[in-house]
């Protein structure tokens, strides 16, 4: 196991906490249903091994019993939870099914088609004349 890999215990705690952050709602799967705690957190760490420590310590800060809801988690005011939440969010959107549901996976190639109506669009700007102060 590398430093960026989570233990089984960490993964199961991550699944529970991640569902508080991203629950199943509005036609979207919850974080654990989207396998945030398995494949997708590993994929986050494959690009950003530096985030592993933040996730680990964010989890460690959340003492048992786990909060029952996100407001409860927030009420504990744990400063390192934000880094954990950001990593969980990144992992969630890496899941291709989630990506499909939100309509964004990655940037795609869009060949340029120039705007042909700029003359008309800027005509009122031009009509107002120069707006700079000339060199005195």
């Amino acid at each position: 196991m590398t430093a960026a890999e989570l233990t089984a215990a960490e993964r199961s705690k991550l699944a529970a906490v991640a569902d508080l952050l991203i629950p199943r709602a509005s036609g979207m799967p919850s974080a654990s249903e989207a396998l945030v705690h398995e494949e997708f957190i590993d994929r986050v760490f494959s690009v950003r091994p530096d985030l592993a420590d933040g996730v680990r310590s964010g989890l460690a800060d959340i003492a048992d019993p786990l909060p029952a809801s996100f407001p409860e988690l927030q009420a504990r005011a744990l400063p390192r939870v934000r880094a954990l939440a950001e990593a969980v969010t990144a992992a969630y959107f890496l899941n291709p099914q989630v990506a499909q549901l939100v309509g964004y996976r990655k940037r795609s190639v869009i060949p340029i088609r120039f705007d042909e109506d700029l003359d008309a669009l800027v005509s009122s700007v031009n009509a107002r004349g120069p707006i700079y102060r000339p060199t005195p």
Partner: protein
Amino acid sequence: MELSSSHDRADVVIVGAGPAGAVAARRFVEDGFSVVCIEQGDWPDYSRSHVADEYLELSAGKEWNPQPTVRRSFSDYPIDTSRSDVEPLIWNGVGGSAVMYAGIWMRLMPSDFRVRSLDGVADDWPLSYEDLAPFYERIERDFGVSGYPGDPAFPDIDSYPMKAAPIGPHGRMMAEAHNRLGWHWWPGSNAIATEDYRNQGACVQRGACMWGCINKAKASPDVTHWPDLLTQGVRLITRAVAQEIETDAAGRATAVVYTGDDGVTRRQEADVVVVAANGLGTPRLLQLSTSTRFPNGLANGSGLVGKRLMMHPFATVVGVFDDKLDPWKGVWGQPVYSLEFYETVKERGFVRGAKWNVTPTGGPQAMTAAFPWGGSEIWGEGFHDTVRDRLGHSLAWGIVAEDLPEEHNRVELDHSTRDRAGLPGVRMTYRTSQNTKDLLAFNVERASESLREAGAKETIVAPMIRETGWHILGTATMGEDAASSVVDQWGRAHEVPNLIIVDGSTWPTSSGMNPTPTIAAFSLRAIEHAVTERRSQAVSS
């Protein structure tokens, strides 16, 4: 200090391979000068770019992050920002910070060069817009700029090498709103090729310009300049940290001493020394170069080396719309800009103004970030609805504010830290003035108005964040008087005539524009002058 034998003496040695240094190298080599460039970083590695895969935003948080303290690359020197309102954003390597820049391309306006005469504050530049205009034109060809000519905010932008990138539905929406308000806007000018152009490929509108443009559509000198310069015989020494500029008894610069990647310290002798290390690196190198003749640092008789730091405080206002805009499907930098509130209007209670550009808000991960959305956390029950509301339905006005030069804002050596060559890091002191705060508050109000006119159902004024120091200016100021400036209008140090400074540290005032076109045009003008002078000396001797 162990000093290994230098390579052959050169006509010119340049420190820094960013836009300022690359432009200088090109102008010298065109006239047959032998040129060596010393650059502390390496070439950007586009094979490590994630612009085409799903890891884009993750990589932007670390390896492709513009903040040296986050990125922590081998070429980043220590910068103490504990006394600064703003974090400096730079990239140290071949291409300089332009490897990370958005490519937003703005000339200054005539009034930017005449702040004292027109507004009674700060200083006039010792050169005018008209002096620089022909050099802007040439630089725009070298950097493959695309844009739409004729903006009435400038006297004479008659052409661009390429047609403007599409303004997108988001740019169009803001343009139409400004037309209704009677406010200025213009299609964006960007250092982005909209067709295959010299070394640049045509833009494919990935909107990932700051995180490693693999199509090489964005004009950074590692694309536009350095491959050709190497062919033309310029010697680029990478991974080499310049640690001192040496001078002789007559006070002329004789050599740059540097530590190479092998840890060996060498001396590169040359007839002319050009410094292009940016608003932080240039004062650092001058301050490191002390001698009996220059006990307070090289060319620092005025005491102004490192002082008058200006960093363009930045504000963002976001609008959320019902319409689907997908603003990342285009160039990131500026599909459109506005200069409606750029010039001073006395009744507003502050001097100078700001430039605005429309900017996308990003992909899903960015919809959940503290910036620009504010501190309240979005996780829990409302998470999905919030993401759905914002993603593809939001855009922002980025507001670049002019800040005025103040001597207490400064860059100094920090002897408590060391870079990899054992040199001290720097400490920045930078506080935003009341004039700038008032200016920003006014512009934020107007930008919210603009977004509401466009139909925003919600506008959010982003919290002021520290990570906005893209533009680092003023720390080796130019002027006519040696007692109150470091260099003259040709970038020549008043006290060291064969030392030329060509980066943004020379700016007497900051303007409210993205600075690279002016840095590059100034470098070209300065070096053209140096070349002409040396030619006439050669003829007369």
